[in-house]
């Protein structure tokens, strides 16, 4: 059972799908938060030092 689960988790296609969903979610969130505006999320704190 554990071996099958391990095989499932190390499956390349699944990894690829996971990455695809992760990137897509980030892009969708960026789109929902900023739309087509040239967003600025504020200056970086450490740029001041």
């Amino acid at each position, binding site marked *: 059972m554990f071996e099958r689960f391990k095989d499932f988790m190390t499956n390349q296609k699944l990894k690829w799908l996971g990455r695809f969903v992760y990137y897509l979610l980030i892009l969708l969130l960026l789109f929902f938060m900023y739309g087509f505006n040239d967003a*600025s999320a504020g200056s970086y704190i450490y740029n001041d030092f």
Partner: protein
Amino acid sequence: MTPYGSFTFFFILAVLLAPTIILGLQGKRFQSYNLFVTVIALAVIFSSSLNQAIALCLFTIWQVVLIKSYLAYRKKANRDSIFYLAVILSILPLILSKVMPYFSTMNLIGFLGISYLTFKGTQLIMETRDGLIKSNLPLPRLLYFILFFPTISSGPIDRYRRFEKELALDISAEQYKLLLYEGLNKIFLGFLYKYIIGYSINHFFISQLRFISHSEFQNHLYYMYSYSLYLFFDFAGYSAFAIGVSYIMGVKSPENFNKPFLSRNIKDFWNRWHMSLSFWFRDYVYMRFIFWMTKKKWIKNRNLLSNLGYILLFLLMGVWHGLALQYIIYGAYHALLMVAYNSFERFNKKHKWWPQNKVTHIVAIIITFHVICFGFYIFSGQLFHKGV
């Protein structure tokens, strides 16, 4: 234009780096083209301020002349006084840029990234003194190292010998594919950290705190934790962008963060937070101080020496952030924590008071998290202001 500060910047980067990616995927060399990209990217970054652009040019000439002169001198002689003079001259522009705002409304010396460029310049002088850099530094390579644009505004602080080794490597198409993949991953992580999580914490929580909290104490408490998380996601987001773009340009810039909020103690924290800066201070301030004091035999107690080294390191690090009270106290706070932890570690080695197991591991992480957040609360300056 602020690096990684807007989508336009990323669009310009995508256009500029497209030939690098194509060349990389074909297994061809692209470092000459990257020099051209660096010049254009610097022009874009500093286009909004002529003063800063001039300051950057003058600063670069100053550092290059200093490094080259010291290297030439070091081949013939090795006097302490010349070394100290070279180090002081190297950090002089940074000191002036930090002090000048207190005397004048115009800061003609300062520019975006002056601290990080100074760290690189001083590092070269120190490594030349140590005999680690002996051969002549080719000017284009030296300039490329100092002005490497992905990390120009806030690091990570790279080391010359590591950087040079990577530039000399021939990257095959397969190797570049992996670099590109890792680079893109980091850039997406940067978007998640800075533009989604960091922005949300600041916009939806910190700026709304006066409506969320019911008392002054609650207000400050919420601020302490939310600011700590905001600072992390803001800076780790920037670092992910900087490292990601470096990877795409074929340079594996060092990491800056390694899950800092999972630190078991304050020493562990400084091995995980802003790593390139803390390692710089460790190598070029702490270690040098210990070495120098040991050589002079002024202090023989090793523990006292180590504690004095930590105090010097963290006070300098605090002052580097700025000559404001919050930064000096922030440095002193961390120095105190480090000295206290050092003493506790020695005590525990003898008496085994704090056992090593899973429970104590988790408890240590929780305690360290709160102690660190209080440090960031000092750093934010809110402790010295009325209200949030």
